């Protein structure tokens, strides 16, 4: 994807996330479209692009969120970096693998977000946050990530740029 496509996707992300997606919320939890965009960008285009798109999407989310500015930047940029690293470990992803990785990424960045939030605002027991926010959101993201993979990503001629010439485990030569 070129930079204009990324720009349009990131700009569309916030209106969709703050308006239409509310209709798909379950028990006050909605999927995180930004995380999915960041995951697929990082996984298929590398950690640098994932990091940058994560930072940009996070900044926009911070502007429209009730939280302290910077929380989403930090968590989403980390998500981009992590998904890029995951993309180097896993080549030729399947739907099930995508679901598993999105679940893991969502839980990791959610936990990171929780600790950032605790540093700034505080007073939420982790068990409650995990039960009512982190886990439902991660599950929701995971299912949606699998669906996006099956419906969109699988049909697109997307290849990880390092998949053709790189070997894993790395060749000792």
């Amino acid at each position, binding site marked *: 994807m070129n930079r204009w496509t990324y720009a349009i996707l990131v700009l569309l992300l*916030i*209106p969709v*996330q*703050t*308006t239409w997606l*509310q209709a798909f*919320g379950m*028990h*006050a*939890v*909605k999927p*995180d479209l*930004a995380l999915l965009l960041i995951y697929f960008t990082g996984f298929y285009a590398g950690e640098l692009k994932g990091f940058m798109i994560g930072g940009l999407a996070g900044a926009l*989310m911070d*502007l*429209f*969120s*009730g*939280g*302290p*500015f910077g*929380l*989403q930047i930090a968590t989403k940029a980390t998500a981009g970096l992590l998904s890029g690293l995951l993309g180097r470990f896993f080549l030729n992803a399947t739907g099930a693998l995508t679901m598993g990785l999105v679940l893991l990424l969502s839980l990791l960045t959610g936990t990171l*977000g929780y600790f950032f*939030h605790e540093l*700034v*605002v505080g*007073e*939420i027991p982790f068990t*409650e*946050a995990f*039960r*009512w*926010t982190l886990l439902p*959101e991660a599950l929701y993201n995971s299912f949606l990530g699998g669906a996006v993979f099956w419906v969109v990503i699988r049909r697109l001629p997307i290849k990880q740029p390092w998949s053709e010439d790189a070997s894993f485990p790395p060749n000792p030569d």
Partner: protein
Amino acid sequence: MLRQIINYRRFIILLLAVLLVAVLLFPELQRRPVTFLSRPVVFIISGLQKGLTSTTDGIASLWKGYIDLISVHRENVRLKQDLDRLQSENLQLQEAAQANDRLQQLLDFKKSNTYPMVAAAVIGRDPSNWYRTLMINKGTRDGVSIDMGVITPVGVVGRVIKADSTVSQVLLVTDRNSAVAALIQRTRDEGLVEGTERGLARIKYLSLLADLKAGDLVLTSGLTGNFPKGLPIGTLGRVTKKELDLFQQAEVVPSVDFSKLEEVLVITSLGDRPLLTGRPAPPLTESPQNRK
């Protein structure tokens, strides 16, 4: 053989001549041969006619049916388009009627209260799952500033935490960072309503002696914050009373359905009582410590 045929012919000619004479002699018989002749001819021709007519009719009917079918199909398409348009118009009118009802309620509520309010439409919600906020289409240009209370005729919605020139962000009472001074209508016990992780609310710091019951109405106490006294917040749910605790607390079921909120009122002044804002509205990047 030939002679027999010739004899036959003669006999037939003779018979015909006798018949002709008989017919000529008896006028009433003049019609009979016509009848005898006409009956089979008419039968055959009329049969053919009927057949032809019915075939023609059938073809005509088929053609007419086909032509009609085309026009019916066209008409059907047109009627379906009309139906779709009318259904859409009907939905729009229903929507407009509902919006009119809601706005009328807001207007009535606004008129029935002395403090000035600004009506605003909800244009978005928080993009993350960590906070429960709303974006409204009114900002500092319309007189909205930070910490102003936001309500509907049904009850308390929350308070403004960020205000830009044209839009503002409202922290809902169900957010964990929200706190509204409240009292129980029946017992007059006072407490603090906070949001919970589950998107509900709870009232804390209630006296252990307070006789609380599920269903009790929770109202704003008007002591702190920028809400007038007596606005409904919700009703009491499960009451938690532990022996070693200093206070008891209870779940509060908000009276406002935040998932269906479309219009709200921002209280810009409490009449004689000054609002506790006092801060100029910064751009949409206020730190969360200000909300505590």
